[in-house]
């Protein structure tokens, strides 16, 4: 998909800093979006009710309410993509926001191009993950079939352990979105293991190695991206 296809989409910007908000609005309008801007949580939720934007850009530090509450209110009603605008020292809040249902984050200061790419990705996945009719999950040459419990790369089966299979399934289900480690732990190990270090990094390393071995063309090289201290993200690949 290209930037042109997402033009015309409605974006809600929630940012309390006047200069940053104005710059964002100008940049987004220049890229062809319809932009509403709110300087606090209450205004943001009013706009949200009235306009139902296609994507929300949310700064967590708001003067009147916790940014996390804004996420909660929006999530109660719709799966609208939410991209967090985060300062570097809001590391833990960033993770919490993702766990509460935000889809992605950009770290301040961010460049215009990075932001545009994130918005495009968010709009793309607004149409749903790469899921086929029989529940198969697809990313480029990679196909995960939950019913038959198998992973194929270019029709060749890849031998994953049950843990690795579950981790890949969670990531693919949320393709394009950042999946926090807590979320992977909950989904794969269950509630009891939430606080334990279950060597997720090592498992992911194994998955990457096995996929790389089955993919000599290197199409899947950057499939699983690492967000240090936060989690993982499966790149949204075009379907073949």
């Amino acid at each position, binding site marked *: 998909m290209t930037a042109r296809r997402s033009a015309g989409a409605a974006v809600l910007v929630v940012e309390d800093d006047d200069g940053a908000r104005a710059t964002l609005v100008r940049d987004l309008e220049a890229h062809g979006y319809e932009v509403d801007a709110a300087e606090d949580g209450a205004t943001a939720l009013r706009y949200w009710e009235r306009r139902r934007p296609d994507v929300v850009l949310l700064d967590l530090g708001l003067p009147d309410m916790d940014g996390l509450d804004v996420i909660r209110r929006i999530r109660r009603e719709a799966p609208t993509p939410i991209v967090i605008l985060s300062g*570097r*020292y809001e*590391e833990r809040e960033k993770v919490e926001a993702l766990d509460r249902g935000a889809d992605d984050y950009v770290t301040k*200061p961010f*460049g215009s191009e990075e932001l545009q790419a994130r918005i495009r990705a968010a709009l793309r996945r607004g149409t749903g993950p790469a899921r086929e009719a029989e529940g198969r999950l697809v990313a480029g040459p990679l196909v995960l079939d939950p019913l038959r419990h198998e992973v194929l790369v270019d029709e060749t089966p890849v031998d994953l352990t049950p843990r690795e299979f579950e981790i890949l399934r969670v990531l693919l289900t949320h393709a394009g979105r950042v999946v926090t*480690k807590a979320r992977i732990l909950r989904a794969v190990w269950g509630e009891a293991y939430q606080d334990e*270090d279950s*060597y*997720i*990094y*090592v*498992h*992911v*390393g*194994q998955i*990457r*190695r096995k996929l790389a071995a089955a993919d000599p063309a290197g199409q899947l090289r950057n499939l699983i*991206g*690492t967000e*240090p*201290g936060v989690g993982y993200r499966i790149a949204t690949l075009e379907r073949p």
Partner: protein
Amino acid sequence: MCPDPAYDPDMSGIRPSRLIRPLGVAIVSLAAATLVVGYLQDVVGVPNPSAVYLIAVVATALVAGTAGAALASVAAFLLYNFLFTAPRFSFSITDPGVLLSVVLLLFVGIVVGQLAALQRSRTAIATAREREALALFRLSRGLATRTSTLDVLQEVTASVRDELGMRRVWIALGPDDAAERIVADTGGEGRPAPAGLLQVLQRMPGETPAKWVRVHQASRSAGNLDTYRVRIEAGGNPLGSVWALRDRDGGVPDRSATRLIAAAADQIGQAWAQDQLAGAAQAAEIARQSDALKSSLLQSVSHDLRTPLAAIRMAAAGLRPDSQLGAVARRENADTIEREVEHLNRLVTNLLDLSRIEAGGLRVERETVELDDVLARAVERLRARSVDRTLELALEGPPVRVDPVLLEAAFTNVVDNALAYTPPGAPIRIAALADDAYVRLTIEDGGPGVPDGAMPRLFERFYRVPGRNGRSRTSGGTGIGLAVTSGFVEAMGGRVAARRSALGGLAIDLDLPAAEVPVELRA
């Protein structure tokens, strides 16, 4: 029962078994003296050998004290009178000269006996004093050379137990009875708890000796043990107590023992109060250093902050609609702004990181991660910025146990440094190598390097290698980047080192703790 019966200067506590030796000495020495006197008077013909009895009196005095000496004198008087004075085998004396000498024998015997016994008890007291002084010396030396008071208290309890003949000694610290927590205990059966009668040492101001005051029955069930308690105070504030269990048969500790236990309590109180003062002084020193840091930080950084700001301002002005710049120049201005913002961001990030390290407020969340994974983003950025360098990468190694966010920042700073101080075309090599408990991540370059003398100081904050100017301004140029690296790596349980690289330039080693990985996960 006292473990050392000789150490009981309290002579009144005489038990039957302890009478045997003095009595034996008295009988044997008197008998021997009688034989010698008989021999001298009847065989040799010495007119009045009664003085020989004085030897027996002195011998008895040395083992039996003053009372024994007096008794021996009387016995010697009676023996000589009965056996050797005319009329013999009767207590009557006819010759006034002999009568005088016999009375003198009694008198001299008593005096010499008393002197000898006094000498003996003085020796005993001196020995006891020496022991007391030695015990006190050991105690104060232990506390004076301590690294931590709590460690020494265990030794103190043991020496108080041994020196005072206690069954068990423990020290509890806390401002009042309810808050007292046991910090040292010589051990013994069961839990350390008061038993039998409770005696508390009452201390008076000035010269008045401290005395034991019976407070109440601590516990009925305790058999033949009594409890002794000395409060630990410093500057009038209660800090805790020394507790001791002692056999009831042993009686109340004598003066010397009481002095010792009181001194122990005082010394512990002083040491403890001193520890608290030292803690406060350290906190003040940290606060002072933190202030000094802030001011040197401002000096060092204000220039590095202003320069990019000036560039941004000028470039932004060139983007105004009324500016005369063409499309290419405008694009370059926009690039300048982005680059300078990125630079400022790195600088500010490092400043905040450094202040977090200095403030000790760093939160480290360690996880098991793989280096190539956690550094992927940083390496990607590095590739983009080092198009004119030869980059060698070998990051595959065993997993490490680190905070991924801190590691990425630590690594980025070293890499920024290498990029800033190497000329185009210079090689940069990044490699990971397993080394026992650590995984060594080395970032080395083929640049000009730094003088050997500067190596140890590279990780100091605000240190800049003299005469070395970066090709481009980066966070490394402020003497902050590597300080942050070292702070982060050490906070994660690792260590950093700088050395000369085989490539000719500088090599920085980051030793990161290796992770324990279950066998089934090993590749």
